[in-house]
């Protein structure tokens, strides 16, 4: 039997786009959360953490409703970019970005809160604005958090199942990512393929996590 790697490629492509999008959105959002004194902060935090506790089916169902072309969001994407968001790869990216949102935000927010306030002030007192301070002082001093956020978001997106199944369906070569492919194999009683795919997933996940923990250990030693 020849191994079809398309589902894995799709999984990684999806995880890559999701991580990049969330990084761009997540950095300003997490910075805002870490520095705001607004009384709406708990509300924002609760909303951004919802995907952790909601059953994927609930999230998937709502996303299906909101992203379909009969909804304003779906219509907006159709009219602006000519993109259909349900049962397409683009739709999966949008859904994954929402589903993995807290996994990017929470480490970043911890990271921002962990950077000593006085080195940020030192940068302002050196005549530097907020953007320069962010890129040259704050982000370089929260590397472990940044890496954790990126890896966990990536890994979590690779590992998601319920939401992608509902929003993407299982269209081979388009939306059938690895986790869904395994489900399909099990359903068709093709245990051999399911075993191979599962083993690959397990190996990749373990390697990624091992790498994160090893890097964090090294960073801790460097800065302490």
């Amino acid at each position, binding site marked *: 039997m020849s191994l079809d790697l398309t589902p894995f490629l799709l999984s990684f492509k999806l995880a890559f786009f999701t991580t990049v999008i969330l990084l761009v959105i997540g950095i300003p959002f997490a910075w805002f959360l870490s520095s705001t004194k607004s009384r709406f902060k708990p509300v924002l935090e609760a909303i951004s953490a919802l995907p952790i506790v909601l059953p994927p089916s609930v999230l998937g169902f709502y996303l299906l409703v909101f992203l379909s072309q009969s909804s304003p969001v779906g219509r907006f994407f159709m009219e602006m970019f000519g993109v259909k968001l349900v049962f397409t790869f683009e739709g999966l990216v949008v859904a994954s970005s929402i589903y993995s949102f807290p996994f990017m935000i929470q480490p970043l927010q911890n990271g921002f809160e962990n950077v000593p306030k006085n080195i940020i*002030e030192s*940068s302002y*007192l*050196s005549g530097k604005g907020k953007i320069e301070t962010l890129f*040259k002082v704050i982000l*370089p001093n929260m590397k472990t958090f940044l890496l954790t956020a990126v890896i966990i978001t990536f890994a979590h997106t690779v590992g998601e199942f319920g939401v992608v199944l509902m929003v993407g369906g299982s269209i081979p070569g388009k939306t059938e990512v690895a986790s869904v492919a395994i489900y399909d194999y099990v359903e068709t009683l093709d245990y051999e393929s399911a075993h191979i795919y599962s083993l690959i997933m397990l190996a990749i996940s373990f390697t990624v996590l091992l790498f994160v923990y090893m890097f964090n250990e090294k960073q801790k030693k460097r800065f302490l």
Partner: protein
Amino acid sequence: MIKIDIQKKLHGSGGEMELICNFEIKQNDFLAISGPSGSGKTTLLRIIAGLEECKGEIVVENKVWQNKKIKLPPQKREVGFVFQDFALFPNMNVLENLLYVKKDKEFAHKLLKMAGLTELAKRYPNTLSGGQKQRVALCRALMRKPKILLMDEPFSALDPQMREKLQNDIAEFHNKFNLTTIMVSHSPSEIYRLANKMIVLNNGKIEKFSSPKELLLKTSGSAKFAFEGKIIDIVGVDVINIAIVSIANQIAEVVISKKEAKDLKIGDKVVVSSKAYNPLIRKI
């Protein structure tokens, strides 16, 4: 001329209080701010730097840093700030810490040379001692060629030898660059050595504003020597009572009367003073 006239409500450990400071200093002055903790010293420094909001006016050499209409952000105030705990950028080496402020390699090397740090230029902050870190922080604060150098208890995290070295550096920099310096400090010897003006802040108000010589040398009454200490024990030996007092790093025994023994208790803050005697001086 630097004119400061500010008010700010503070929520200190002792409840609400108002910080009200109104004073002027001249260019090239070295002002020390002293006073009990929680009296608003650090807040005053942060207000001058633009790190905290307040009401009032700050004018530095005819340039308004703050009044009713204007409030310059820290970036636009030409200040150098030395934090108590250094606040160096951990991701940059010593030279990069300085160059981050201003890309002037020549000046950076000159400052490092003056502070005796040339050999450490490529080292990262986490490999430096406290004294070295604070000297780097001082050099970094000067990279902007500030109108005012602000220092928040720069010596407090250092051991005595390091203090000595840093004091020399500060004195040298202050004179060489014609700086106007404002320093929060608890240590009378440091204030006496470095400052020409001194403010004693208490509960948010200026209690005294004069020269360190006048404020520090003049002790109450006609006492020649007076040290603040804390009673750590009171013992009765035969017919006399002895108070064991901790003064700075020393423990001293002081004979007290029966009545005094009754009035004093362990933990009391006291002044131990002496009038007429010949102090002995010996090199150590």
